[in-house]
């Protein structure tokens, strides 16, 4: 390899090293920036969806929506025990239109 070519190869290698260092630096800085931003603005990240969350509390009005005794899945959930047949005896209460 003649001196001119060797010099060109060296220059190319040095350039690649500089680009690689700069890339790593940018990557690290990006990650650090993201962590700092997340820590700084964590209080703004929604932690509950008021229309979906359900609780069993007494109604704080702080986003804990739902029916008061409902399931925690946010969906329409059936009873733990399906209604049973009532036979022919008298009823204790009526469920009908109002």
């Amino acid at each position, binding site marked *: 390899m003649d001196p001119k070519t060797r010099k060109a190869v060296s220059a190319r290698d040095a350039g690649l090293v500089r680009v690689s260092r700069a890339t790593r630096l940018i990557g690290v800085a990006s990650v650090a920036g993201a962590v700092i931003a997340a820590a700084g603005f964590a209080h703004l990240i929604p932690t509950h969806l008021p229309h979906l969350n359900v609780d069993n509390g007494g109604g704080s009005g*702080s986003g804990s929506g*739902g029916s008061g005794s409902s399931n925690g899945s946010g969906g329409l959930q059936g009873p*733990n025990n399906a*209604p*049973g047949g009532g036979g022919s005896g008298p009823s204790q*209460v009526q*469920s009908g239109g109002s």
Partner: protein
Amino acid sequence: MTLGIAAARAEVAAFGGTAVVLTTEPGALDDALAIVREHIRAVDKACSRFRPDSELCRVNEAAGRPVEVSALFARALETALRAAELTDGDVDPTCGDALIATGYDRDFDELRLSGVTVTVPRPRPIPGWRTVRWDPARRVVTLQRGTRLDFGATAKALAADLAARDVHDKLGGGVLVSFSGDLSVRGPTPDGGWRVRVTDDHRGADDSPGQTVTVRDGGLATSSTTVRRWNASDAALHHIIHPRTGLPAQAGWRTVSVAAIDCVTANTAATAAIVRGESAPGWLAAHGLPARLVRADGTVVTIASWPADPDSGGGAS
């Protein structure tokens, strides 16, 4: 858990209908009734569309401006919005204006007794629950100008759930709280469960056409187009509004009863089923909700694990 004891029963007027309180401990009935009355008073004050001093009226009158609301109203609002979301908007709390437009602008007893015949104007579009701006952290709600909320599909059921839980937590024992037939159960029950007659009208006699079932937990609610009806110049109207049309739903089902994890879920599903019409059975089955649907001609269809109706010629799915 079931108990082999007789239950005690009390009945009072509430929410334009009848409230029934059942307890497994007869000695607890008076205290239970007092607790239930307090919930009736609080929910009525917060959520009534017919009381000028209610929080709901204050919020509706302030449409277009932010309003800070009480914890109970916040809960009722969130419950109504959740119902809308879970039913893809079939049960929508922003139908207040449409109800008024169809003539349901006063307590139903007044409407029924006055015998008025209303003229329904051109249907108005429902603003839609997504237009309600709700800040749960500050408990501030902002309605779009011209929007009126109505919690008719959820507030009474919420009251039943809250009252039943409160009675059970404070007094122990088993309790059933029913507001006009939307009922919530907590704690142990008598042998076999509470015996409930599902029928078109919650004021009906014990031998009214329907079915008696037993309920051991959760909630059971019935929506019907047969009771809250009034006359327009060219049609009979009812109180279940179809959000897409702004008019009473063209009900393929006259009465739908649903059992669920609680009364709010049951009432939400029952109302949505009336709105959905023919697709309701598949929708209820997909959610695993035991249900009984009655067509206008009286044919009964039962869904999921709802017990077969011995008097029905209808099918089960």
